[in-house]
């Protein structure tokens, strides 16, 4: 072995020595001839002629040495590299094709792997399940303390069930006020998702005791930012509002929440307060997002069965006053987190698989053409005594080398593609970290590429092994060429079919995106800026809005508790109209929004009937609400809703101090899309801020771009109360863009993939056709010699190129009909079998094929019969 290795490393010297030895021979011979009176020129020529082609002699000398695997391999690799270098055009196209196919695959799979396959970064992530409440029109609602209490009492399948609710709060401690996300968590919640705190401890049962001191857990970020990473922070007291709390623990640096987007649990929560689970109020508000850890050996199906019986018991507990349609849903946590992007990613993965197939078909095509063209060479070498095994291995090495170069290039392309995907990723993917180039899949795609190139590269040789050598020498160009051409046609047909499916799918996604762009969300985002402030006093807020409205360039200012399409913790609750039977109460829910007068005007919503709120719509007067047209239509179809009464939940005595009140409808506004641009999730009820104070988003409608708006806004807030932090300053259009991100992401990626696929198919068709035109030069020459005109030749070439394209188109059509229904969930405003989409893409494929066929066809018409026939 050592000897082999030494020889391998001494290869360079061996090559030099071989070179020197042969040079010595040629020079000796030359000198000899000169001595015999030949001219130097003639002597050298003769000496060279006698020894023959130096390269061949060298190769034979190398082959004369015994076959050591490694050395052989190196030799084959060198030979292969030389052969590849000899045709740079082929090399470039093949490498690029492979690189695009592998690179795109690797990038997409890296995302799929990080998001769908890799477990969430939580302890026992595979045993985590999300527990959702279904009541009436809500199927993914959070639970009330009462419900959680009941579940905990009864469950045997869950080890733990905990809940979280996130709202905005102000960071404690010294320095600038800062608004942060505050998580209210049950005492068992944090240990469900985090193995251990960085410092101190998480909450425990002792923190639920009525007389326990108020403890908080802070995030690593807050600890570093606000407390200078003080190692002795644990046990210190901090002031929160009027109270003081003890810091119990610090979460680890990389800890973050990866929750379903509709749970309104953001990735980074900076401050945690414990909530105790009080089972005394069956009608308390549902706000806790539940996560449970199944006990080992259990599964979500069993947990669901148990949950069905628990919900049955809860329904009976509440008796006639309870919601008759209360239900619990259990889903594996990870599945639920990715449920929105799952389909998009899998479809993209399928699409990119198609691209890889097309790349492979292309490379196979190129290699087939090349190998067939080289059949004469291989036959000659066989005749000279090279063993077939040796030849095949040689070719395999050459093609594997090609695959390797393609793979390396793919690494670069994959990296770039992944950057691009991450830059364009929708909000639903934003929380996933560790989306890196996946080397497992890179290895896999590498293998596919190498295998493809190797297999298709040697196919013609293996096919010709049955042929007689001399026969094959004579007919190298035609016999095996015919097998090659059949393959070529099949591959072109496959490329067209796959390309067509991608086109149809992309057409649907792009139309969907266009429809999403066109959708009327019920409000206007242009020139509206917003920022958030924690629960202000009414007077302060009112004053702030007046001051803001007076700023230059500002048309109006208003405030709302929940920006449309924003992910702030939702507020939704039950409502019922007068005379509702007890079982109808607590059964349907609407989104509730706290607003100040002027909100609808500022955001460009349409007040259909009645009036906006006024400053006097407070707790001292008749409680009033504004509802949207969806709710009005549902409750009082064909009737006037103004003046009707609804039982709603409000909190006139302070933030989150919910109580039920009868309120009078004073206005009807057009529905505003709140959760998604494309789905109407729930109707809305608007409550005056005085009846429902809470953290607010302030909206400013400007006449255009106002310079330094953020600065002047902050200045206005500080002017009134310098303890109030301002956060999330930004245009409302950003929020809308975020809501479109999923659709944009899908259509953008699909379009890129399809563009690549079409380009590849184009190259493939072009390559095959050029090759077949080159092969048929003689035939074309004869045709022209006996009177065929350019147009006839053109027709002939086009005809032969369209022969595989039409069956490809038909298979592609059938494949699309079978596959596009998978897209249904992602489409908006278009059906999978949309006729225009199909028609356009058939035309597109035909145009692409025509473009790819044109150049070779034109080249065919330029064939000079005289030249063509001479070489035939």
């Amino acid at each position: 072995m050592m000897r082999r290795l030494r020889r391998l490393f001494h290869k360079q010297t061996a090559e030099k020595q071989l070179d020197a030895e042969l040079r010595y021979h040629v020079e000796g011979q030359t000198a000899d001839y000169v001595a015999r009176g030949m001219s130097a020129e003639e002597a050298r020529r003769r000496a060279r002629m006698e020894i023959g082609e130096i390269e061949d002699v060298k190769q034979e000398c190398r082959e004369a040495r015994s076959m050591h695997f490694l050395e052989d391999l190196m030799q084959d690799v060198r030979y292969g590299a030389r052969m590849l270098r000899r045709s740079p055009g082929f090399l470039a196209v093949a490498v690029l094709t492979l690189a695009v196919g592998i690179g795109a695959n690797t990038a997409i799979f890296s995302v799929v792997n990080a998001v769908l396959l890799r477990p969430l970064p939580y302890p026992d992530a595979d045993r985590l399940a999300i527990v959702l409440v279904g009541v009436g029109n809500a199927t993914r609602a959070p639970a009330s303390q009462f419900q959680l209490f009941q579940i905990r009492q009864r469950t045997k399948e869950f080890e733990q069930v905990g809940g979280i609710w996130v709202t905005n709060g102000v960071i404690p401690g010294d320095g600038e006020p800062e608004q942060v996300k505050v998580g209210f968590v049950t005492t068992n919640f944090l240990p469900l998702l985090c193995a251990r705190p960085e410092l101190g401890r998480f909450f425990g049962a002792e923190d639920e005791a009525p007389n326990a001191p108020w403890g908080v857990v802070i995030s690593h970020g807050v600890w570093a930012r606000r407390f200078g990473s003080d190692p002795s922070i644990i046990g210190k007291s901090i002031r929160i509002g009027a109270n003081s709390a003890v810091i119990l623990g610090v979460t680890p640096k990389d800890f973050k929440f990866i929750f379903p987007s509709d749970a309104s649990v953001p990735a980074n929560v900076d401050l945690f307060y414990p909530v105790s689970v009080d089972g005394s109020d069956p009608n308390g508000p549902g706000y806790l997002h539940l996560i449970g850890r199944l006990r080992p050996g259990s599964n979500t199906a069993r947990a669901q069965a148990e949950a069905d019986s628990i919900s049955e018991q809860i329904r009976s507990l509440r008796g006639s006053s309870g919601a008759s349609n209360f239900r619990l849903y259990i889903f594996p946590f990870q599945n639920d987190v990715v449920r929105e992007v799952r389909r998009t990613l899998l479809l993209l993965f399928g699409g990119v698989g198609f691209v890889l197939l097309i790349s492979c078909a292309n490379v196979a095509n190129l290699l087939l053409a090349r190998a067939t063209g080289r059949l004469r060479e291989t036959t000659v070498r066989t005749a000279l005594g090279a063993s077939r095994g040796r030849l095949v291995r040689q070719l395999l090495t050459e093609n594997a080398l090609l695959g390797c170069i393609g793979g390396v290039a793919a690494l670069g392309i994959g990296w770039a593609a992944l950057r691009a995907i991450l830059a364009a990723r929708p909000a639903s993917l934003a929380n996933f970290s560790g989306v890196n180039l996946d080397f497992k899949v890179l290895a896999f795609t590498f293998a596919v590429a190498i295998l493809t190139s190797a297999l298709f590269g040697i196919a013609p040789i293996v096919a010709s092994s049955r042929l007689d050598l001399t026969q094959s020498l004579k007919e190298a160009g035609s016999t095996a060429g015919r097998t090659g051409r059949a393959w070529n046609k099949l591959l072109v047909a496959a490329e067209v079919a796959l390309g067509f499916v991608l086109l149809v799918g992309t057409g649907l996604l792009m139309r969907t995106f266009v429809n999403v762009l066109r959708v009327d969300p019920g409000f206007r985002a242009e020139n509206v800026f917003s920022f958030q402030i924690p629960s202000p006093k009414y007077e302060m807020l009112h004053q702030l809005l007046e001051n803001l409205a007076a700023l230059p360039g500002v048309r109006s200012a208003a405030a709302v508790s929940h920006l449309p399409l924003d992910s702030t913790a939702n507020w939704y609750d039950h409502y019922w109209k007068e005379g509702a039977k007890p079982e109808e109460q607590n059964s349907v829910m609407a989104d509730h929004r706290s607003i100040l007068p002027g909100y609808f005007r500022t955001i460009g919503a349409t007040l259909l009937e009645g009036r906006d709120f006024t400053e006097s719509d407070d707790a001292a007067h008749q409680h009033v609400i504004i509802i949207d047209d969806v709710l009005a239509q549902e409750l009082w179809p064909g009737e006037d809703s103004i003046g009707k009464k609804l039982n709603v939940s409000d909190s006139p005595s302070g933030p989150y101090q919910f109580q039920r009140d009868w309120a009078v409808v004073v206005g009807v506004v057009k529905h505003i899309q709140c959760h998604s641009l494309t789905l109407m999730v729930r109707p809305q009820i608007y409550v005056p801020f005085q009846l429902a104070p809470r953290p607010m988003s302030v909206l400013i409608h400007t006449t255009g771009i106002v310079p330094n708006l953020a600065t002047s806004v902050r200045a206005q807030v500080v002017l009134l109360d310098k303890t109030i932090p301002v956060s999330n300053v930004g245009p409302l259009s950003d929020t809308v863009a975020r809501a479109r991100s999923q659709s944009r992401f899908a259509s953008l990626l699909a379009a890129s993939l399809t563009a690549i696929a079409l380009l590849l198919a184009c190259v493939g068709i072009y390559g095959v056709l050029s090759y077949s035109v080159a092969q048929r030069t003689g035939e074309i020459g004869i045709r022209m010699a006996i009177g065929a005109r350019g147009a006839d030749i053109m027709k002939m070439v086009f005809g032969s190129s369209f022969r595989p394209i039409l069956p490809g188109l038909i298979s592609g059509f059938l494949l699309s009909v079978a596959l596009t229904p998978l897209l249904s969930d992602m489409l908006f405003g278009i059906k999978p079998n949309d006729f225009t989409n199909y028609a356009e893409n058939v035309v597109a494929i035909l145009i692409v094929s025509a473009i790819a066929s044109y150049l070779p066809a034109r080249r065919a018409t330029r064939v000079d019969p005289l030249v063509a026939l001479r070489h035939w």
Partner: protein
Amino acid sequence: MMDKDKKEFLKGTLDMLILKIVAFGPIHGYAISQRMKEISKDFFQVHQGSLYPALHRLEDRGWLEPEWKESETGREAKFYKLTRKGRKQLGNEMESWARMSDAVKTILGAVE
């Protein structure tokens, strides 16, 4: 002799001829080719291109040993030297050659 048969015949004898020439003392490739030309001028001509692969084959089998040293022209050249294994091989080949040659002679003699 037909071309093809001559080739086959050559392949078998070439190795032996080379070994024989090298047996006289270390010699470089060019000199071997010259010697071969001299010896076999009338009968056959070894294509120079096939001499070197043969040399490398013999070296690989351990019958020849390379040595780089100054040649008569004062330049570094690759000299080949017969190894012990090579000498034994040469002996074997010459023996079997002689046997065959005897046999052929006998047959030819008998016919005459």
